[in-house]
């Protein structure tokens, strides 16, 4: 408890201004980074030998706002979860179930990842789980069959590790991973939330962030799912997902700019994360950038591995 109290105390100090504000803000898109990884099937069936479906589609959402269109490359691999929730390093290196999907692939521009904003979705990557080695299949099968029935029901996880970097400079980049839960066929599989639309306080889809302040809300077409969870004794209980949205915005974010008309900024949100149904207050910028647009990205997660996102661009560029 002493360690936890220290963590909380530091968080409090940060909030009340007892630490300096020199660290970058999580919600501000500036450097090369992965915002989200979307998989078409966050949970799949497994009968002890075969995954169904066995081919998945992974769509990365990234940002390289100030990269000026530099050449980027990526790699993708997957493996059995090494026990990240128990403190294992989140990587597949050295994992006997490692399967390489792509290495040194060039990142191509897309309709949304393009000049001048370079913040958007990359082309989807096909992941064929059947391409794993015999050893990997054997280890995955062994792990699953040696798990308890509740663990098989609730699911184990594969991790897909995606690394994007500046071509020729692998130290400049970002790494992200996405879990794919595999569980017994008896269980109804988790689906991604869908239909994320960001609206203003009048119920209208937002169109621009420059003119005045206003409330922003989100309203997924598909509400939170209800699902079954089996406890260690084999008892089933019905739970409901918790949908949480994270709000990202390009550009510098300086709270002092709210009253300084000479500042160039993309605006300021009240909160980094909001729960389903909650509003997030937005303060419009005083002076907007002219050499690029402003990109708002909202990612909603269901805390079970499913996610969806919405992307809005205002001003210049796609």
């Amino acid at each position, binding site marked *: *408890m*002493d*360690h*936890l*109290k*220290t*963590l*909380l*105390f*530091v*968080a*409090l*100090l*940060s*909030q*009340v*201004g*007892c*630490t*300096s504000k*020199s*660290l*970058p*803000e*999580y*919600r501000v898109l500036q450097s090369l*980074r*992965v915002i*989200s*990884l979307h998989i078409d099937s966050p949970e799949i069936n497994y009968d002890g030998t075969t995954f169904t479906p066995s081919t998945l589609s992974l769509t990365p959402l990234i940002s390289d706002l100030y990269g000026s269109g530099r050449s980027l490359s990526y790699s993708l691999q997957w493996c059995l979860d*090494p*026990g*990240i*929730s*128990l*403190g*294992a*390093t*989140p*990587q597949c290196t050295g994992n006997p179930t490692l399967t390489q999907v792509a290495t040194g692939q060039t990142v191509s521009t897309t309709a949304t990842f393009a000049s001048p904003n370079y913040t958007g979705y990359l082309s989807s990557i096909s992941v064929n789980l059947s391409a794993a080695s015999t050893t990997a299949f054997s280890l995955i099968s062994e792990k699953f069959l040696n798990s308890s029935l509740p663990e098989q029901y609730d699911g184990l996880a594969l991790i897909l*590790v995606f690394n994007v970097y500046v071509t020729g400079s692998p130290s400049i980049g*970002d*790494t*992200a*991973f*996405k*879990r794919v839960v595999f569980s017994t066929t008896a269980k109804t599989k988790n689906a991604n939330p869908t239909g994320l639309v960001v609206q203003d306080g009048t119920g209208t889809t937002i169109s621009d962030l420059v003119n005045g302040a206003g409330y922003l809300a989100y309203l997924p077409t598909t509400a939170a799912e209800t699902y079954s969870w089996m406890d260690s004794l084999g008892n089933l209980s019905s739970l409901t997902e918790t949908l*949480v949205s*994270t709000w990202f915005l390009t550009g510098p974010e300086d709270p002092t700019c709210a009253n300084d008309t000479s500042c160039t900024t993309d605006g300021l949100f*009240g*909160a*980094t*994360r909001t729960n389903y149904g909650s509003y997030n207050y937005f303060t419009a910028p005083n002076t907007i950038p002219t050499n690029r647009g402003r990109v708002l990205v909202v*990612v909603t*997660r269901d*805390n079970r*591995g499913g*996610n969806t996102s919405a992307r809005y661009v205002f001003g210049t560029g796609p």
Partner: protein
Amino acid sequence: MCFFYEGVSFASIFDGTLYVKGSRDTLPNATLYLLPQKIKITTDEKGHFSTPPLPEGDFKWVANISGFNKFERQDHSVAGEEILQRKFFIQQNADFVYETTITSKENQDTALTQLSTKEAQGMPGAGLDPVKAVQNLPGINRTPGFGSQVIIQGSAPQDTKYSIDGQEIPIIFHFAGLSSVLIPEFSSSIDYLAAGYQANYGRAMGGVINLNTIDLESKRTKGMAFVDIFNSGGAVEVPLDDHQSIAAGVRASYVGEVLKAVIKNGLTVAPNFDDLTVIYQNQIRNDLKLKIVSIGSIDTLGFVINDAGNSDPVINGSFSEKTGFFRIFPELTWTQSQASKTTASLGIGRDFVNTQIGSDYFNLRSSVIGYRADQEVHLNSLWKLNVGADGSFRWSDVQFQLPEFISQGGVTDPLATTQTKTASILGAPEHIVGLYWSNQLKLSENSPWTLYPGLRFDDYTMIHDASLSPRLSIRYQYTPTLAFITAGGLYTEPPEPQYYSPSYGNPNLKHSTAYHLTIKAEKDLSESVSKGSSLYSGVFARWFNHLVISDPTVIWSNGGSGRAIGFENSFTYKFSPWSIYLAYTLSRSIRWDANHAEYLYQYDQPQLLTIIGSVDLPRNWKISSRFRYVSGTLSTIPVGSALDTDHDVYIPINGALYQNRLDPFIMLDLRLDKKWVYDVWTLSMYIDIQNILNRQNPEGIQFGYNYQTNQTIPGIPILPTVGLKGEF
């Protein structure tokens, strides 16, 4: 009372009492002179005196008592016999003098350093708290950050055990280490037991901090009240009759209300602490004494994190905590003879913790009965034997819903990425028992050699484990003022409950062990309490095994090892009115396990330097200052990170553990004391300025959201505090 005179005509008789100025303590067996009559009178055991009939005319009272200012008072004897009443208040001339405990060092644990509360309270930077003054001693690591524990000679914070009169208590400090839990006026001294302590204590691989409560005096009612910017309180001691007394003291803090008013954004419940202590003492017979100490302590805190932002998404929402305990310690001391004494005590009470973190929680209710019994026997003039037992029964009721806390190298995985565990546990009673056999042996009556062999057995029933720990100390009194000492042995410690809990940890854990070895020299050149010097120098070494470490396969395992070595020194020089104290420790503390080659331990502090100087000025003024230099805190810098896209947070990828050392801790404190001594009461004032240089000492590191950037967390800025205290 005695007197003499030459025959003259008689006049008045003077009847009176001699008191210590500033209190109502009387001065027994003190001599008064009446001049020019050259009459000498001596006060009785109650400080009362009575003169013979004095001749009419002027005369002068004169007293020249050791430790007191010279007293002179003109008076007049009138014609006609009558009894005139007088009360005289004589001021001590050593109000600020350190009162070190003068005990025969041969008759105490060779690892013991004892500070009198009065000495400890006067140290700058301690804020009148004697336990905080212990942190000035050599070998005591500075607790970095906002910790509230005492770290001894390179060991872990949890390796230090705290007790009051030998009975264990769960915490020694209130929230954030602002104040210890026992009101200082009820503490007579603090025991610090370091490497090589004897068999009568155990279950602590680091050492022991024990507070000794005062013995009440059944003489008069006395008390005090104080106020400073953090808290205020008072205490009173009342004799019930000539063999029993009762005392009560209470403190209430309000620093939280000040913080809440200043910090407008965040605090919902002001951080406050309160404590209450009651002591009852009854000298039933000359050979039988009963003492009952009761103590209660409570800390509260609450705040709201409105936007986790860069922080762990789990650390969001409201947080509140209420922590407290109370204990009743009845103690019976029976002295059968000069060669035999029995001491038996209990520690009965409850502990509670109520913590709310957003939707997660941790609630603990624990009942405990501790016991301690010691039989001391002088088998002959050369051999003193102590046998005894100490232990506790504990029943705990725990409900929690918490994410697992995984940390390596001081870098914590985001709680959002770890598993949340929920449990409601009504635990079976846990029993720990320790049995010990301790000896003090002189080889001959005049031998300079004294041996202290001992053996301790500890049974940890909750983990089905036990240990047998031999201990040995040897003292060689080279000269009456120079002694050489070596001490060592095996020390064991059970894992903390959260580590062996079947619901949250690994129930197959066993106890951890440490071997101690220390060699030291003590030179005492004190001529009196206010003059002389003393020097202490020694080396210590500890080897740790079976330490509890994080293990992804079994959550926790006994796979850790370590060692700590050091060279510690202290020098005290007193030449009234000046006093200088210097403590320096050079040390190294290392850990390793199956997954990590040797690395510097988190609390490794190669250099600790403390210099304290003070000067007593006329009219009861005193200025003192403390300078501290401590090697910088160690931290681990991740070599990378990965975004957990399911939990919306980056997980650090650690490189070598604790490879980064922050800038050193340097602090200068200044303190000014003033005392006004009136006839029956005193008023004290102090101004204590911590960190007068306003140096931004780095206390830790805060990382950016993806661990690619970081910034240091500064410690306290310049912190002036003012306090007033009245005593009667």
